[in-house]
């Protein structure tokens, strides 16, 4: 299928919070793409998603959707895009009515029951057990999946998910991933997902872009190191983690700059390294492991005193180090391996 741009963003600006501004000079998202946005809380991910979902309107710049500039009154194309909020809101009615709502407001009642039930099954919710339940009779994960079903039933061109796994259990996170991947392959839905769960995000999307303080600061699976940085002398700058460990970098452009380290530059050791020149030796625990879809390499997520670092290893390296989640390791990278945005 020939690719064509679904979204074309130029000089987009939008203020959020008291101090921050989302600033996206240029961004193109292709039809059928599955793109992830990673970043910390308050980085601007949700703001960008709300703009892409046409819930908010940009203050400056424009968003073209399917070739047409989106304006406040351009209602037709807006219905091709639907968004699942971070904390789902279910209408005060039955589960069935929640899932059917979007179809009803479109006046599309053909085989309503069949389609609603189909969407519920897609997210692993048995219609027999759940369709008649009231909105408040669901757990957090079930509510999130019903909210997802109410979007999937619309067969949108674009499905936008904001932190879909933030408040759900592991099983729901897996079911959500399976449902969106299946919908993408069956119906060609484009996916735009924001999440700070990098491993989940990486396994659910083709590409990941990072957002920091309202700016897209990198593409791919990268580690973002946020300032502020303290001058330690000899050209070294440092930041202390919650557990007292330090991250050392060289020459940040300013003290609050965000540094980026490629996962390929992070080496994992299962023994405490001694007598080596690498400046950053961070003690941590393996929290997640996932296979990268394109390369076949394994991404290891290590929690080091509150900072999670991703390291890219070959399957054979993982095997020889006997890495499993929960294992104590040391993550190493050179102070000079940090790039700046």
């Amino acid at each position, binding site marked *: 299928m020939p690719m064509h741009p679904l979204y074309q963003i130029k000089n987009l600006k939008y203020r959020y919070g008291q101090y921050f501004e989302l600033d996206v000079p240029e961004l193109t998202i292709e039809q059928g793409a599955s793109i992830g946005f990673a970043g910390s809380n308050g980085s601007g991910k949700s703001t960008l998603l*709300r703009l892409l*979902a*046409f*819930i908010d309107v940009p203050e400056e710049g424009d968003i073209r959707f399917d070739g047409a500039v989106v304006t406040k009154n351009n*209602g037709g194309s*807006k*219905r091709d895009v*639907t*968004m*699942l*909020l971070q*904390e*789902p*809101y279910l*209408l*005060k009615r039955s589960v069935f009515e929640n899932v059917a*709502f*979007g179809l009803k*407001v*479109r006046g599309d009642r053909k085989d309503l029951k069949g389609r609603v039930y189909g969407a519920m099954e897609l997210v692993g919710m048995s219609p027999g057990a759940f369709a008649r339940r009231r909105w408040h009779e669901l757990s957090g994960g079930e509510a999130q999946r019903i909210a997802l079903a*109410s*979007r999937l039933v*619309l067969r949108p061109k674009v499905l936008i998910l904001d932190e879909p796994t933030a408040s759900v259990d592991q099983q729901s996170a897996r079911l959500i991933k399976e449902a969106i991947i299946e919908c993408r392959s069956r119906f060609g839905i484009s996916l735009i997902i924001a999440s700070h769960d990098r491993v989940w995000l990486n396994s659910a999307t083709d590409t990941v872009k990072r957002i920091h303080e309202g700016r897209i600061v990198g593409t791919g699976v990268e580690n973002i190191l946020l300032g502020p940085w303290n001058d330690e002398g000899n050209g070294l700058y440092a930041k202390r983690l919650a557990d007292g460990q330090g991250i050392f970098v060289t020459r940040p452009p300013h003290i609050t700059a965000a540094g980026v380290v490629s996962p390929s530059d992070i080496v994992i050791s299962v023994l405490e390294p001694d007598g080596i020149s690498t400046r950053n030796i961070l003690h941590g625990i393996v929290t997640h492991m996932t296979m990268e879809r394109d390369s076949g390499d394994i991404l290891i997520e290590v929690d080091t005193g509150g900072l999670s670092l991703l390291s890219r290893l070959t399957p054979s390296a993982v095997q020889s180090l006997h890495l499993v989640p929960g294992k104590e390791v040391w993550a190493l990278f050179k102070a000079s391996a940090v790039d700046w945005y």
Partner: protein
Amino acid sequence: MDYIAQGFIRSIDLLLAGDPETYSAIFTTLRISSLSIIASLIIGIPLGFLLGYFEFPGKRQVRAVVDTLLALPTVVVGLFVYAFISRRGPCGELGLLFTIPGIAVAQTILITPIVISLTATAIESLDRRLQATLVALGARGRQILLTSLMEARYAVLVAAVTAYGRAISEVGVSMMIGGNIKWHTRTITTAIALETGKGDFAVGMALGIVLLTLALVVNSSLTLLKKRS
């Protein structure tokens, strides 16, 4: 103390025997309060929705006026409505003084601010995610407004029940506009005031029991609705 106990026993007798005078006051109260609550909901819900949903210049001032009107003294409403509908007043030709519709008009004025204010609060208290959810699901214009009102339905019902409670229990308006005319405009509250004045505690108590029962039903439904909302 004996006369209170005797009055209570006689009041039960009156209720059980279906005393026509007692029941006339009860039905008059129900007729008037039904008329006034219907009118106040028709006027108050749309206005309350507009006040709660939209932002406009002067909104806070309008809100302050409506909230002040919540504490409107019944005798003041009675006074103004009396002035308007008495023979010399601008609406004197309508012949509403000392009639059931006349009391209903005054009660509507009394309780509409309650409906407006509580509906506005209900709409303002809607979850902030609702609007984004409705837009994301493809709802437009009127669909968003109606669904928002539906989402606030239990809280709007609380407004209605609160207003109804005020209507059945007020005495000032019924007395001044209705004139407490036996078989015609005598309501539960005006009858209690009159019978107590006359020293006939039995009728007063019988009506008091009915009023308390109505208040109990109203309050129970309020509690139930608040739980659901």
